[in-house]
């Protein structure tokens, strides 16, 4: 039955005359979706269009958006329609329109607008209205907004009704979100101009919405939208939407402004030498910080929305003449493919885009330092910034990147090399020491000098536990101190470290629970793990340490070697965005050699080979021009 009805309607449609500007020009084939849309629209049309003017009808009818785009590529569709709708509503309401406008429109539409209709009832309009589109009826829009935001239950969204001081006065209302928008901006750039300054030139020249946008609103970013989706997205992000009576479009005035942290010192990646600013929670400020470092038109920031509910912006930053296009494609593919409800922090984003979630090594590097991000972008990597997260993700990353700090680069090569060697030692100590201690004490007592062994044995003499238990007690309590120190409220936080160190260390030794030598070992291990600069890497080493403790206690050095073997394979088989995790050491690729030692700045001639960047060179062979000149002079003389 329904089928035949539809069929009949379609047939009827073909015979009914309808001046449809949409269908002028070339005709494209309808897609099934469009056809469905058209079908949905039909009843409205037929009901209204029975006796009414065709042109008017066309204007009142909600437009299938995609189609209109396709059909009239050279026209600015929104504007065109708004003009028509505006006239229609004005005529319907029988409100006195300014003479000029009236004249213009009457000329244009004289023959079509011969008989005027009664204004539609509220419920009628509401029925006809496409809920996605802004209605010319202010009341409908308000109802719709209240429906979307669940006003008045939802107290965050505020509707402010007012009248625009033009002649004749037009009713309007503004919607904004409390908390995300700046109240002063709303007062000075939205309400004040609309209610007061609109009076300066009360006669509307052209279309009302145009007039308001061009001549009344003085905000720096004002957009016109006719879809609720866009408007709501804007309001959710702090903009103010202004709906005007009789306009089927709304104005979106940028009034973002929320309480946020300013740019502060880096807390977790401190350097002695170098810039002392860190990312904050504002995406735009963060991208700005990076741009401040790389003032190049080649630096591209692409924006991707992530999260069906949260709608968070993810910025992908790269140097487009350097970055490997395949890498870029892969990064974008991974981020764009995410189908998640919400991502709250870049830590979660990291877990969504890394390839081996069960491998213990971190495959994405997070940093809070803009200079570090800029440095890696210059080398051909890609930075991913999530709005609201003070950490930028840098991909791809290698283990050596994670073991470097910016201090290495900012200090002179010898100092940087020294720091790196210290950190290399710390890296090994942080996961091997307790295991090796157990292996020596349990299996390989002949390895240590006699006096040292006797000292170890003497210290352990009164300890009632096996050394494995002893080590585990200490390691666990150390982890407890660490975790508790992090979690306790600020005021108590400082004391936890002291309490932990003093009570646990001193008292445990005095109570003969652990031997003093073990305290040294645990302390050195803990110190070393703090010397590993990247927090996630620290974490992986902390966990691996326990594996080595058990291996050392069960099998001695054989176990340790066995563990190293497995760990090495795990690391070398790992890839971060296609880059081997241990590059450029394994596989050995051509690089500046800036891995374990730090070469002087003038030797950084090539970008890392494993990135396959478009530009291989970082700087010419002789980066210091003056050296060349002086050496030339020398040769001549």
């Amino acid at each position: 039955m329904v089928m035949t009805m539809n069929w009949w309607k379609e047939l009827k449609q073909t015979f009914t005359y309808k001046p449809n500007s949409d269908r002028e020009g070339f005709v494209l084939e309808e897609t099934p979706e469009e056809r469905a849309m058209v079908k949905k629209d039909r009843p409205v049309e037929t009901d209204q269009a029975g006796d009414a003017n065709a042109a008017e009808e066309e204007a009142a009818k909600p437009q299938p958006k995609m189609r209109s785009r396709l059909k009239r590529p050279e026209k600015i569709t929104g504007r065109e329609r708004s003009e028509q709708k505006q006239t229609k509503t004005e005529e319907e309401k029988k409100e006195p329109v300014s003479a000029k406008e009236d004249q213009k429109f009457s000329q244009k539409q004289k023959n079509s607008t011969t008989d005027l209709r009664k204004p539609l009832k509220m419920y009628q309009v509401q029925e006809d209205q496409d809920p996605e589109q802004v209605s010319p009826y202010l009341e409908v829009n308000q109802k719709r907004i209240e429906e979307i935001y669940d006003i008045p239950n939802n107290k965050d969204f505020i509707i402010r009704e007012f009248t625009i001081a033009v002649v004749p006065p037009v009713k309007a209302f503004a919607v904004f979100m409390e908390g995300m928008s700046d109240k002063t901006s709303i007062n000075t750039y939205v309400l004040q101009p609309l209610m007061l300054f609109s009076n300066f030139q009360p006669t509307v020249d052209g279309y009302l919405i145009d007039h308001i946008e061009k001549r009344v609103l003085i905000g720096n970013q004002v957009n016109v939208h006719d879809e609720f989706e866009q408007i709501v997205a804007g309001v959710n992000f702090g903009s103010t939407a202004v709906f005007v009576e009789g306009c089927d479009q709304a104005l979106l005035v940028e009034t973002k402004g929320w309480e946020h942290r300013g740019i502060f010192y880096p807390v977790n990646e401190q350097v002695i030498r170098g810039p002392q600013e860190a990312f904050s929670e504002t995406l735009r400020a963060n991208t700005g910080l990076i741009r401040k470092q790389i003032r190049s038109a080649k630096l591209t920031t692409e924006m991707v929305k992530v999260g069906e509910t949260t709608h968070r912006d993810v910025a992908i930053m790269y140097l487009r003449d350097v970055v490997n296009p395949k890498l870029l494609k892969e990064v974008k593919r991974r981020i764009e493919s995410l189908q998640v409800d919400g991502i709250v922090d870049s830590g979660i984003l990291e877990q969504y885009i890394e390839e081996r979630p069960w491998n213990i090594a971190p495959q994405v590097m997070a940093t809070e330092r803009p200079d570090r991000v800029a440095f890696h972008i210059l080398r051909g990597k890609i930075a991913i910034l999530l709005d609201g997260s003070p950490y930028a993700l840098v991909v791809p990353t290698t283990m050596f990147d994670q073991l470097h700090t910016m201090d290495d680069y900012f200090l002179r090569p010898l100092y940087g090399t020294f720091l790196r060697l210290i950190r290399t030692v710390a890296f090994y100590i942080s996961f091997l020491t307790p295991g090796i201690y157990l292996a020596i004490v349990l299996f390989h007592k002949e390895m240590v000098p006699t006096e040292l062994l006797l000292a170890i044995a003497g210290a352990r003499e009164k300890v009632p536990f096996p050394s494995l238990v002893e080590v585990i007690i200490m390691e666990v309590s150390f982890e407890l101190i660490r975790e508790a120190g992090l979690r306790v409220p600020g005021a108590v936080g400082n004391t936890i470290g002291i309490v932990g160190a003093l009570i646990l260390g001193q008292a445990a030794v005095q109570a003969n629970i652990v031997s003093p030598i073990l305290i040294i070992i645990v302390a050195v291990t803990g110190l070393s793990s703090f010397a590993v600069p990247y927090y996630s890497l620290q974490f992986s080493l902390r966990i691996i340490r326990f594996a080595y403790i058990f291996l050392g206690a069960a099998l001695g050095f054989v176990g340790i070697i066995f563990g190293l073997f497995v760990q090495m394979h795990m690391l070398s088989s790992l890839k971060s965005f296609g880059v081997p995790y241990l590059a450029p050491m394994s596989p050995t690729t051509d690089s500046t050699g800036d891995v374990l030692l730090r070469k002087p700045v003038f030797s950084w001639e090539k970008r890392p080979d494993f990135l396959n960047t478009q530009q291989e060179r970082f700087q010419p062979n002789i980066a210091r021009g003056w050296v060349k000149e002086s050496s030339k002079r020398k040769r001549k003389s």
Partner: protein
Amino acid sequence: MKDKTKGVKLCVKIVCLLCLISTSVGCLGARETDQLAFVLAIGFDKAENNQQEVTITIANTLAFSSTGGSGGQNAASYETVSVKAPSAWETGNLFNSFNSRELAYMHTKVFVIGEETAKDGIEKYLTAVSRFREARGNSSLYICKGKAKDFLMNNKPVLETSPAKQIELVENTSKIIGYFPVTTVNNFLKGLKDLHSSPVAGLVGIHKTDKDEQVEKLLRETTDPLQEPYYAGAVPRTGGNKAEFIGTAVFKDDKMVGVLSGSETRTMLLLQGKLTSSMYNMTDPKHDNFNIAINLRQARKPEIRIKHEADGLKIEETVFLEGEFVAIESGENYEGIETKRQLEQAFSREVEKQAKELIAKTKEQNYGDIFQYDRYYRKELATWEEWKNLNWKEIYDQTEINIICKTNIRRPGFLRQTLPILRAEEK
């Protein structure tokens, strides 16, 4: 479904691996430090009735704990015990009849063998030591003048907490004075296997408090300051630790045949090329009642040439000494170029004389080649058979060995020139 089987397979694999790990031999080899008694020194002696007496020094780890408490530092840091049994290896079991802990030999620093036992042959002990997994081949080996039990029981290091450290440090002094050789079990066994040269071992002993005739006699006879005729147990001294390290025990095969005194040991080390440094004292060539002290070190490895001449084989060895003045009692200006050369030559003659005496002694006492000259003779032979059947001792006894000493006193010390002090009488 597939994933499930895969997961099960993975679990099975992991369980298998864990089982493998837990059944590995490693588990059974683990010993806590407080389960073990660390043996620092072992002494072998021959007892009456064909019994063996083994003495061991065990470290008392409690004394090494820094955490005060009860009886920590006050306890003796080591304990020496001895047991008699028909077999030296049987004693290991008997020790545990009164010792609460398993004995661990991995830190045994020194093996001391009594003189009597050494004269019977020590190979059986050493092969056992080198066979045993825990014992170290690089532990020192000393022959004790007297009984090893007495040595270990009476050895009470004054400056160190344990005999282990004492032995380490004492061996360091061998490099400074050269009065006793440092021999390890491995070295000794290697010397034994060399077929032809005689192995040597350091000599230790316990100082005798009562007056010894032999010591008295030595004291009376010694006039040349270059001579140091003492050996362990006979050093004229008062006070200090009773243990003495001086002299050499000479072996023929694995049997001890004789003893070298301190200065003879030094000469032996010099000819072997193993002397690091030593302080030499000699009578002033120009003033008989004054002495000269020179600190010398072996500048280069000795040059050894083996010549076949009409009247038989000849070995010519050149040793090089370099060093500085320590004392010139007479005030003679030996720093001058000419005088220094004279002194150097006089000193070299003295050293050569000593070396000749030592070589004569080895031939006379039938010690055999303690200088390992056979190593240089080896290249004269073509096959192992020849080498095996070589009667090196006979050749050695008949060979004329020439020692040439080249001394070079490089530095005068802080005094560049000695001028006579003007005395009242001379004015």
